[in-house]
């Protein structure tokens, strides 16, 4: 948790009053004319936990990829943390993902040749702090997700639930403003899914981070502050 001793600057106050994420009229058309997004708009405030639900093929993953700066819309604009990311050049996007975003995917989230600790330290490695600091922070994150005793295990030596917890630790290690999760519990049984979601909620609340989770699991929806539904490429209130 960040401890501040100074009053926020006027600029920071303006930023704090802005929503963390704003997406306007996003359109994405795939070849063969499939309109995955058809005027999708969404606003998410700081520290919110928002669920996006919908049938498969409703455009959930496409939306998540665009919000995560992994893909570009054919039309529409996206602001993250006050930056209009849809106007940035391709070469600038990795830095946005590295400094402002965290990702958790459904499964196979981890690099198989790296230990849990190295997987969590990976984003830090791209930021290039001193390796000692990177590994200290990675260890702290793993301890926070309850895997302090699995630091040097390879992903193949961890259970599915443990692997997802490592993925969460990695998504949070950079202190990103926004964490995006795509069906994070999709490969877990209901018991593990509930544990994982509670952990995510707790960590986000502690750190004041914003969290968007795409899911079709109603149990996941229960831990969210708000739920949106995707229908025919549009976002509607749940």
């Amino acid at each position: 948790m960040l401890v501040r001793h100074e009053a926020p600057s006027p600029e920071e106050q303006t930023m704090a009053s802005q929503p963390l994420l704003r997406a306007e009229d996003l359109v994405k058309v795939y070849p063969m004319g499939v309109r995955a997004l058809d005027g999708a708009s969404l606003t998410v405030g700081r520290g919110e936990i928002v669920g996006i639900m919908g049938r498969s093929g409703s455009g959930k993953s496409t939306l998540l990829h665009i919000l995560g700066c992994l893909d570009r819309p054919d039309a529409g604009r996206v602001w993250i943390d006050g930056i209009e990311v849809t106007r940035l050049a391709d070469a600038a996007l990795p830095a946005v993902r590295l400094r402002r975003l965290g990702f958790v995917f459904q499964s196979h989230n981890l690099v198989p040749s790296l230990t849990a600790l190295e997987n969590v330290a990976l984003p830090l490695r791209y930021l290039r702090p001193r390796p000692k600091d990177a590994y200290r922070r990675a260890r702290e994150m793993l301890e926070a997700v309850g895997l302090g005793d699995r630091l040097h295990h390879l992903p193949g030596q961890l259970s599915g639930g443990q692997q997802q917890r490592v993925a969460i630790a990695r998504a949070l290690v950079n202190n990103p403003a926004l964490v995006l999760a795509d069906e994070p519990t999709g490969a877990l049984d209901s018991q593990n899914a509930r544990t994982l979601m509670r952990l995510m909620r707790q960590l986000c609340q502690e750190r004041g981070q914003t969290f968007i989770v795409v899911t079709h699991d109603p149990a996941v929806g229960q831990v969210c502050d708000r739920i949106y539904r995707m229908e025919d490429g549009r976002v509607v209130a749940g």
Partner: protein
Amino acid sequence: MEILRNLYRRRLRTGLTVLGIAVGILSFTVMGAMAEKFNRLIDGGEAYFARRIAIHSVGGPLRLNLLGPEEIEVMKRTPGVRHVETQIMMALDETAGFELAPRFLVGINLPNFARAQLIAGEAARLRLARGSWWQPGDRGVTVLGSATAHKMNLDVGDILTARGMEFRVVGILEETLSVPDGWALIPEEDARTLLLADSALLREMGLDAVWTNAYALVDPGLGEEITETLARSLRRGYLLHSPEQLARAAGTASSLLNAAILGSAAIAVIVGALAVINTMFFAVSERTREIGIKKAIGADRWAILREFLAESLVIGLLGGLLGLGTGAVLIGALNGYMASEGTPVFLLTPRLALGSLGFAILLSGAAGVVPALRAANLDPVEALRAY
């Protein structure tokens, strides 16, 4: 660490690729070592002949291919010739058949030889490794070239038996990596006795002042001009080689050898590069999802490019080390065997060792560029769809 783990994760494929590079580099090292040795021989020869115009008779008195006192006198009187070195040269063992370093008995007149040594310069000088030269007037003595001594297993104090005559070894020359290594220097009188012993005709004619070959020693840069003058003075029946002609011939031989190195290098390029390209393309397609995840969490193109390039460089380094190591062992073994046959044929120089290793790394790196670029340019969304 991650690189090594990734390579270890697909160890069979990595192993085979490393082996592919190693085989290429092995051939490069061994071929290169042979070329280095021959280049050294050629350089040694060039240094030895830098100030010498070689003169052989291809006719002469009664077409016996010999040089007589008149020819030597003509040479001595030719302007620019500082000294005429005379030799009586014959095969040490006519029954030896093919030898890599042919052995010769070379009859010399000690004062004449010493003066030639002085004029020929530092680089062309023959030095004693052990023992001493004989005294003028001594007979039945010899100073051996290093290869002759080694092959015949002779040392100072031993007896060399050649063409039915015995010579006491008084000295051994330092290795020159050139023609004199195969010589056994003997007093001119002994050589002439052997020459006459084979020819009743020569004995009958009383031709006792004859030589088989001579060198006109000249100052550097004058070789070509004096060779022409000598050719005119000696009229026909003599074969003359100027230092420049010898250098040109040596240059041609060097080029051929260098072409042989490049040929073996080309084999290494093809074998090694194909294997590395194949392995790295496999690695990229196997790890597509992993690349997608890395891009999602903030890796830029350069980070991905660097990771895959580093893997191919490590493959090159391992292959290079293995190839060079195997090559060095093989060269050592072959040289050990060759030494008993005459002269070692391979020379592993530091520049060749460094060159081989550098070549392996550079080649692997170059082969890894295209697969690494493919990885770096993967679309993150597409990559994340892969399993």
